């Protein structure tokens, strides 16, 4: 792997939650390198520790063991220099702030730029996720899909190098979900950041990713890292291609074994 692949470097990351006698090991010896501008998805059964891995990288939880470097620094040091983007499953917007105020909040907290420049940055982020015209609405008056768009906007407004997304479309209905993953494809193309993306949807993973990390269950271990060599830039219609279907089938057999395969043949 080239130097470029060393933007994020995980070495033997393990996480054990204290529990009865032995404790519960959710992540066991995770090794992974991610290059700049990579889009890497994590898939696996519930409880395989993919969300925990993301939270560890974000510094929300410490690993029990292992080494974690971002851009040659500890993740804590990195995040204090270059703020991370994080999109949660349910948007976690602040209900007392309007859409524009929510998108503006990270700029205020980080103390980025002057108020006038902040206003342009906020508008640009809102335009990027196509919520123009809804700036003054409160989260309660936005639909689930719009809230998630807002959550993406507020995570991109300060132009992070690294965007962590923890099942960002998991709480949405199928139509909205599909619409938003198409949107994310476009948005990522326009922003040039590295994305770590946890999802339960295999088509979503194939559509968006450069590589898909398939995790085993209990304890979470990497089973296989599947490169998705669909050409970039990709568009939503790539879903109809033969290569897309092949990747999907491969992932399904990795996760569900050949059981599923046999039934449909």
């Amino acid at each position, binding site marked *: 792997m080239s130097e470029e692949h060393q933007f994020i470097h995980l070495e033997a990351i393990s996480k054990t939650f204290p529990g009865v006698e032995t404790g519960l090991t959710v992540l066991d010896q995770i090794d992974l390198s991610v290059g700049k501008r990579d889009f890497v998805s994590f898939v696996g059964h519930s409880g395989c520790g993919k969300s925990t891995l993301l*939270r560890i990288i*974000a*510094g*929300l939880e410490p690993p029990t063991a292992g080494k974690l470097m971002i851009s040659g620094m500890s993740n804590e040091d990195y*995040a*204090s220099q270059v*703020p*991370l983007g*994080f999109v*949660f499953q*349910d948007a*976690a917007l*602040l*209900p*007392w*702030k309007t859409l524009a105020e929510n998108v503006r*909040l*990270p700029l*205020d*907290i*980080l103390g980025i730029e002057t108020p006038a420049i902040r206003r342009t940055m906020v508008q640009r982020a809102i335009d990027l996720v196509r919520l123009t015209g809804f700036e003054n609405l*409160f989260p*309660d*008056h936005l639909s689930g899909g719009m809230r998630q768009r807002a959550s993406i906007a507020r995570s991109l407004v300060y132009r992070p190098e690294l965007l962590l997304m923890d099942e960002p479309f998991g709480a949405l209905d199928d139509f909205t979900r599909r619409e938003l993953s198409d949107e994310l494809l476009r948005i990522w193309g326009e922003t040039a950041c590295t994305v770590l993306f946890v999802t339960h949807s295999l088509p979503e993973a194939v559509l968006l990713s450069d590589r898909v990390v398939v995790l085993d269950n209990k304890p979470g271990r990497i089973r296989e890292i599947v490169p998705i060599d669909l050409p970039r830039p990709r568009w939503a219609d790539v879903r109809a291609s033969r290569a897309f279907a092949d990747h999907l089938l491969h992932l399904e057999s990795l996760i569900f074994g050949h059981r599923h395969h046999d039934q449909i043949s």
Partner: protein
Amino acid sequence: MTRSHDGKLARAIRQRLPSAALFASVLVIWELAVRILKVPNYLLPAPSVVFARIVTDWASLSQNVWVTLEAAIAGFVIGTVIAVLAAFSFLYSKTVEQAVFPWAVVIKTIPIIAIAPLLTIWLGFGMAPKIAVAAIGCVFPTLVNMNRGLAAVDQRVIDYLRVLRASPRQLLAHARIYNALPYLFSAMKITVGMAMVGAIVAEFTGANFGIGTIIVNAGYRQDATLLFSAIFLSSVATLVLYYVVLAIEKVALFWPGASVDH
């Protein structure tokens, strides 16, 4: 204005109609019963007699209600401010919380009626003991609610702000205070009434002015008409206070889905 606005008003009136009708029919039955059964005024005065008394004694009654109301408002504001400041201090020091909170519970268990005479001895027959009793009644519920509201910020919001490395002060300014506001108003809607009760109770044990003084004196003289007048006016005053708090709440909780009640 618009049709929908008219509809709203009509609906509001329709909603209040049953309770207004109940009130009116109770008054009518009361009036008729007293007249037909010839109940003497010193036992149960008819509503018309009570209202006539309110009109004739308006100067004295309104002045005294006003005195009590002033004490209740002052006590309410002081008690609420103390509770809010205490809740903030708990946020910064677990030790302070552990030291103070059990005593707040103890103070809460003391019947206000029992300490009112003591406060009168210490603070005299003026405004001070009434304000103190009213304030003490307000502290505990507000403290408990405010404490909970400041702490109960959605974990995902806290996680999000942690990702941004927000300082505790930023967390307070952007999240905790807003989160606590609905809890605060929920407490205040209860404590305004308690402040009024506290002020009246303090007047029972010795005061020169106030609706509580009038109630006590009317009781000695078995003047039921005056008692009813005083009861009616103090509940109207409490109701006004309650609606003032409600109006402030409407402005303060400006975002949709804010209220923890209703």
